[in-house]
């Protein structure tokens, strides 16, 4: 039921991404297996991590639009969304062929994901929060 409400909240938000909500962060932290809807809820936090980056919000929306809200959030999917939104150029493979596999590898190389993890791993809530926090640490200086 809570999952359903989260999905509804995420997709019924009108007029772009909502401001980051601490209640959402707490709820996501308790999730055992996240869906793309939870990543969308964290989108405002991703945008807030990169103040001054033009067009990030619209690129995030666009990349998230590729998936259904109930789709499982794997590391490769999360990596693809942020790699597209941040316009990652650290991996030639991803620049040439922007697919989930190379997005995940690029984020492993940049230290966002551990090299022991797999792109097919479904992220839990704590992993998602940690992922967003690490994005800011890894790419924040690009602002």
């Amino acid at each position: 039921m809570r999952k359903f409400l989260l999905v509804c909240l995420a997709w019924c938000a009108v007029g772009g991404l909502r401001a980051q909500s601490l209640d959402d962060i707490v709820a996501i932290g308790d999730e055992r297996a996240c869906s793309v809807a939870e990543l969308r809820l964290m989108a405002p936090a991703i945008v807030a991590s990169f103040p001054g980056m033009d067009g990030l919000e619209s690129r995030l929306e666009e990349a998230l639009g590729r998936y259904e809200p109930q789709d499982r959030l794997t590391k490769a999917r999360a990596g693809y969304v942020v790699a597209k939104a941040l316009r990652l150029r650290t991996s030639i493979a991803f620049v040439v062929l922007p697919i989930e596999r190379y997005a995940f590898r690029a984020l492993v190389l940049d230290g966002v994901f551990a090299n022991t993890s797999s792109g097919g791993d479904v992220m839990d809530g704590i992993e998602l929060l940690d992922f967003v926090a690490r994005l800011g640490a890894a790419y924040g200086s690009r602002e």
Partner: protein
Amino acid sequence: MKKLAAFAAAIAMFSGSAFAEVTATAVKGTVGAMVARKMQPVAAGMKLPDDATIVTGANSEVTLAINNGTLTLKSLTTAKLGGISMTATSSTAAVALKTGTVVSEVKQLQGLKTSFTVTTPVGTSSVRGTTHTVSYGPERGMSVSVASGVVAVSSARGGTRPVVAGSSYVQSAGAAPPQVSTQSSQAAQEAARPGAAQAFAPAEEAAQAAQSDGGASELGAEALAELLPSSGTTGTVNVSLAFP
């Protein structure tokens, strides 16, 4: 009336948690405190319950004054406070870090026994007068870096490892229980004390040394506790074990 007030103040001073309070001294961005399952925004100067769960948003941080120390919660951190008390002779505070990064600065006061612990799912960092940073994430595990003093890091799987000023230590979530050994970047200390050189060597070096001298470098927790006060740092080791 004055006598009554003085008596009441004296009773309060020695009755346990009279001075135990948590105050938000600086707030940046979006910060909230979960009190009685309800999220409340945190503002500078606000007093918080000693069992509050603090949550910070992206690009946000909050600094809390707790007893004789400060605790700064960095961006996207969730931590629960607990066991905070202060008497005339002791100060206790415990922080359960769910995810994110906390920076603690604990002042060592004369005659005040201080216990300040930061617990993550994979270990516990315990200090008495030091400045150190603890961060935790399921990908990277528990990372402890010490700016001053000495911190004892206890793995949730058993084993305690002192981390001294200038050093850092990572307890990965899936790692084997650590050897009881220490590490240090203070080469001078190592040169001055051969025993400390082995004790503060990285785990691999300690293992090699143990092989070469028949395990003489393996130190128990008691031996480390005796060794560390003479290591030239200002803190002392508080050995604490976290049971899974």
